[in-house]
């Protein structure tokens, strides 16, 4: 396990460094003078010079990159141009809301997809199997920027059951979590169903049944566990996508999280804040994928990496 961990770490660090470098390059891609883009053409020369100094843009590119990495190591993401606070503090105040939403969306996706996929496999070719297929196909085709308004029209505006937007009680969480989680539920249903069908045809499942094991034990110990490997990959990849998907869902439901903050920062051209948000989301994504790699080994001890 230690060797496996070291090998995965060996891959993680260059990827993370590459991702950080890409975020650094992003801000330097702003066409023309980034300071002018941020402050507008009418800003005074002194203001521009001050911002240039604050952002370190008056330094050579190599120095800027080195300073960027050194600051990052100290969790210093710079200061927001408009909110008079450090980017790290602003992100820190918004991150819990996004994690709460992503976790609930994932929970909703699992709650929908697992029973559906299992029932579809238990009754192959039946109506529930056909429903599962159509659910996954439609779920994959429904973009969340349409699904969100549809749910809002039905449950908030027509039926009045749930609040339209904001954060506070559990009822505020239902619609954003469903909007964010439904696409994921569709993917997981499809993957888990296919995976279960494949595993159920394997000889070790037949052997388990022939040994006289109870059907529950065959399912829990042999079928589900072996089918989980591919589903774990999807769940982890989707968790990263949930963070990215939160950009749209949080905007629709005015959810005060990192996604909405990113969009607001983009709209106000607060580039240090945009850079910080992108950095945090990308780093989380890389780390979640890293944890998944480690989880593989726990789920299936046969997994090795180039050993």
């Amino acid at each position, binding site marked *: 396990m230690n060797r496996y961990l070291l090998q995965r770490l060996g891959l993680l660090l260059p990827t993370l460094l590459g991702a950080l470098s890409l975020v650094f390059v992003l801000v330097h891609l702003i066409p023309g003078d980034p300071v002018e883009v941020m402050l507008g053409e009418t800003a005074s020369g002194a203001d521009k010079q001050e911002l240039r100094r604050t952002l370190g843009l008056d330094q050579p590119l190599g120095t800027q990159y080195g300073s960027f990495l050194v600051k990052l190591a100290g969790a210093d993401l710079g200061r927001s141009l408009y909110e008079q606070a450090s980017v790290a503090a602003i992100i820190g105040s918004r991150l819990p809301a996004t994690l709460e939403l992503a976790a609930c969306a994932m929970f909703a996706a699992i709650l929908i997809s697992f029973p559906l996929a299992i029932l579809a496999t238990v009754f192959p070719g039946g109506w529930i199997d056909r429903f599962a297929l159509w659910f996954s196909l439609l779920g994959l085709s429904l973009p969340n920027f349409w699904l969100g308004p549809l749910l809002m029209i039905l449950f908030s505006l027509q039926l009045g059951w749930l609040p339209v937007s904001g954060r506070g009680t559990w009822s505020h969480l239902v619609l954003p979590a469903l909007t964010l989680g439904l696409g994921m539920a569709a993917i997981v249903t499809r993957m888990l169903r296919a995976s279960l069908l494949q595993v159920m045809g394997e000889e070790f499942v037949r052997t388990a049944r022939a040994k006289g094991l109870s059907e529950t034990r065959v399912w829990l110990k042999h079928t589900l566990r072996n089918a989980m490997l591919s589903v774990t990959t999807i769940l982890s990849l989707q968790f990263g996508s949930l963070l990215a998907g939160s950009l749209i869902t949080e905007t629709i439901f005015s959810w005060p999280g990192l996604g909405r903050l990113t969009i607001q920062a983009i709209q106000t051209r607060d580039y240090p804040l945009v850079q910080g948000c992108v950095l945090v*989301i990308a780093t989380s994504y890389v780390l979640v994928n890293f944890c998944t790699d480690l989880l593989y080994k726990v789920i299936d001890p046969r997994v090795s990496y180039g050993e």
Partner: protein
Amino acid sequence: MASSLWCRIGVGLLALLAVFALLAPVLAPYDPLRQSLDHDLIAHSFEHPLGTDKLGRDILSRTMYGGRISLMVGISTVVLSLAIGLLFGSVSGYFGGWIDHALMRLVDILMAFPGILLAIAFTAVLGPGLDHVILALCLIGWTGYARLVRGEILSLREREFIQAARALGCRPKRIILRHLLPNLIPPLMIQATFGLAAAIVAEGSLSFLGLGVEPPTPSWGAMLNDGRQFLLVAPHLTTYPGLALMLTVLALNLVGDALQDRLNYRNR
């Protein structure tokens, strides 16, 4: 599912949507930019079957023209991403060594970002506009094709017909173009179909966030965003562009699934 039937339904739906989009200048009843403030937020009428928006613009015409943008962005993104992915993937897979290592690390880094986040970040930096959207989507799109092509070439290059071509003295360029590429067409067709659906949704997402096509050009994503303010009084503003987008993606997914079933079956 009976894949051939669903494939036909998907192709038929796609053809219908494509005809509406491509022939929009002929078929659309109004200029999609024509404003008529006296006729704002009409739900349905004989003159405007799908209603009008807050500026009195015809929703049917705008939805048809919006399809042109979606298809244009989707097809451009897929073609460009495919070309880049094919080039890098075949070089990486065929030559191996440090070229393969360097290219695959680059792919890893780009794939370390959730795709839409990178596209949003790029369009935020470069500014909205059709060309920037296509550029941003290509930046995230080519990596999937490169990985696929590399993987396929790695398995194909050890096959006997490639070794025979090598033994006959064929140059790498000829081996890649004449022997390897034809074998890559089926998996690439499947990937391109799903890629087209993904690109159309991504363009919609960017336009929804105000980072895609610039107003007043009609785009399904931007129309959905405009309609959000009028959900209670005019739900039709979000219904029709959303439905058009969903049907397009559904049709592409149906075709992609059917292709996957058919080509995998043939490969077995």
